[in-house]
């Protein structure tokens, strides 16, 4: 893969700034400036498109091993490249669970083989996601996969002692526990956000307090043991307040928000269409606005997709029987442009921060989230912000189609992605 090709990206608005040329030589950025010539280089005329560092996702379900009917590492990384990502964190809730060095290395190797995007496995916190016994966190860290982020995502590490121990234990190698904050007893049988809409629809409520109570406990635990905690898919206005408070104390707390929680509300559940069934659930407009504001002011560190592919039959059914989750890799940047950039809440350099630099820092991912500057790895994404089109899931590279945006007109289109200087997406087509 380490060929010596040269690429000249001409006239790109680097981080949304003025037109700039970027010369890529081999795996690295060689020059950034104007009027670059680049002898013998492949020239890409950017024509005012926006150039960003390659996007990094902290929360992706690639489903392999075990649920290859919904996604594989190959199809998932192709979807990632289509969406402008150069690195994804593969969640541990596979079959078998990624709770040993063997499984995380297998996923890591599959990612290397795919060549579309770096795959950084997330290790399970507890054996089998069971919440009882710590998985071999150290062994996963020392494996070829070099795991830094640990999560039982899909399940909450609800036992306070297990959570405390996990937080303490990973300090030895600067690890982080990414918590799926969901108090299990408060969410038994939960189907949607608890509020006005659930009261009308007769669907069992998933109250905001079930998320917030766990976050409150976890930030206190992280402070107590001096460790790092990361809040997965934060979804409520109350959670924002808790994270803001924890950060004001100087505690090492980070948080992510999904694109769908930045845009969609529980009003959509009135259709009983399971494409809107997701965990944590879609919340209210007040929550959506609080999340946008928190992403803008940095309280929420980053956007993470929680890309959760499901086969058609798991969504083509009644609400109660349907699986939870939405695909998101191929629409994430468009949703962020729509909700954050076009609304004036973020500029493109801040988008690069929230979707590349910060997630790479949280995941301690070398070579990603770096500035576009000479000597840096050439992980790049070119996006056409003026493009507008309805979302067509049938055209996704992902194996699954469970997108809540079907038919919705969204702005922005990723046209080109480079992973260490090699194009993975060229003119909107996977290479």
């Amino acid at each position, binding site marked *: 893969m380490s060929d010596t090709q040269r690429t000249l990206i001409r006239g790109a608005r680097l981080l949304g700034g003025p037109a700039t040329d970027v010369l890529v030589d081999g795996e690295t950025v060689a020059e950034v400036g104007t009027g670059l010539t680049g002898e013998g280089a492949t020239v890409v005329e950017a024509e005012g498109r926006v150039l960003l560092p390659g996007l990094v996702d902290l929360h992706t379900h690639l489903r392999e091993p075990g649920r290859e009917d919904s996604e594989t590492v190959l199809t998932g990384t192709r979807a990632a490249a289509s969406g402008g990502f150069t690195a994804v964190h593969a969640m541990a809730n596979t079959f078998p669970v990624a709770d040993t060095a063997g499984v995380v290395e297998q996923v890591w190797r599959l990612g290397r083989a795919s060549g579309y995007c770096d795959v950084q496995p997330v290790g399970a916190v507890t054996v089998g996601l069971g919440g009882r016994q710590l998985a071999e966190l150290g062994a996963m860290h020392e494996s070829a996969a070099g795991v830094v982020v640990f999560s039982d995502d899909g399940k909450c590490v609800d036992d306070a002692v297990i959570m405390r121990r996990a937080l303490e234990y990973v300090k030895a190698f600067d690890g982080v526990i990414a918590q799926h904050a969901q108090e299990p007893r408060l969410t038994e049988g939960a*189907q949607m956000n*608890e*509020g*006005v*809409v*659930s*009261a*009308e*629809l*007769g*669907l*069992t*409520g998933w*109250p905001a307090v079930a998320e917030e109570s766990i976050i409150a406990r976890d930030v206190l635990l992280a402070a107590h043991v001096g460790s790092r905690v990361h809040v997965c898919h934060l979804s409520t206005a109350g959670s924002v307040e808790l994270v803001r408070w924890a950060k004001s104390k100087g505690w090492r707390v980070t948080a992510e928000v999904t694109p769908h929680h930045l845009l969609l509300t529980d009003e959509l559940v009135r*259709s*009983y*269409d399971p494409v809107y069934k997701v965990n944590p659930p879609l919340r209210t407009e007040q929550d959506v606005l609080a999340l946008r504001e928190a992403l803008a002011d940095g309280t929420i560190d980053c956007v993470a997709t929680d890309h959760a592919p499901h086969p058609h*039959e*798991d969504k*083509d*059914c*009644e*609400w*109660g*029987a*349907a699986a939870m989750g939405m695909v998101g890799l191929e629409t994430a940047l468009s949703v962020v442009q729509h909700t954050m950039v076009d609304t004036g809440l973020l500029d493109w350099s801040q988008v690069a921060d929230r979707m590349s630099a910060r997630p790479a820092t949280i995941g301690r991912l070398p070579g990603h989230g770096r500035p576009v500057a000479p000597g840096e790895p050439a992980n790049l994404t070119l996006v056409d912000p003026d493009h507008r089109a309805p979302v067509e899931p049938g055209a996704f590279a992902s194996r699954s189609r469970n997108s809540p945006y079907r038919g919705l007109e969204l702005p922005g289109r990723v046209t080109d992605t480079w992973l260490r200087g090699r194009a993975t997406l060229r003119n909107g087509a996977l290479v």
Partner: protein
Amino acid sequence: MKHHLVSAADLTRDDAVLILDTAEELSRVAGRPIKKLPTLRGRTVVNLFFEDSTRTRISFEAAAKRLSADVINFSAKGSSVSKGESLKDTALTLQAMGADAVVIRHHDSGAPHRLATSGWIGGHVVNAGDGTHEHPTQALLDAFALRRRLADGALGADLAGRRVTIVGDILHSRVARSNVRLLTTLGAEVTVVAPPTLVPVGVESWPCAVSYDLDAVLPDSDAVMMLRVQRERMNAAYFPTEREYARRYGLDGERMARMPEHAVVMHPGPMNRGMEITAEVADSPRCTVVEQVSAGVDVRMAVLYLLLGGAGPGDEEPKGATPRGAEATRGNRA
């Protein structure tokens, strides 16, 4: 009327009054020696039950048969159909069989809505109770029984100004949700009464008042509807003991005496005697339970008649309060 009856919210005030009036007309037929009308001859009504409910199924079956429809009972309960494909596959089967209407009872809230909107099926969908969402024909029969008791069943009348109190497990009750919507649409003032644990978060958007104090509400009630409270709720800490529930929210003779003289007691059945209602109340002449059951057949006939017989697209005959075929037995009336 809409193409389907999934929620009481599908009905306007005029739709609801039309159903009640039609049910009145049809109930007169039911009093005749020959109970059948030819209205739905050649039409197929499927009772699709994913959850046991013999009373509701029998009521719909009797209603369809009295209108001469072919009835197919399809019980999906007990087989291994807990996964969603079964609803879709079953729907496609029914579609292939030419079902003109599907009466569906399902344990999942929203299943009838899904059936009606997913494109799996072309016929009319009638919700016979879904999860903890709605049970619109139950609300219609309650309104019917109520109108008979309080307004003498007068055609064209609604329930304007009537004060109805619904007591019990509001949180898990599809009967409560449908009744709050329908009775309000018909002009009634509804109050729900329950311990706070059994009132849903978000109830503030409902068009009704909420009270935790049954005794305070009883003197101002024209009707009190007691909901069945499952004893298992106690295990999930919704209330401490059966005894305490009965003491605070059960209807006994002493409480009934505090209701206005004309006020009635309703119950959708089956009753938990000794829990939400004492035998003394259940067996008193103020209690409408038996009337509610017979109203069920009348109202379900009216719904099937109006959905299938009276107002189909391309159907020249205007819909109205007088069912086709009924004229022969009772003469025309403008």
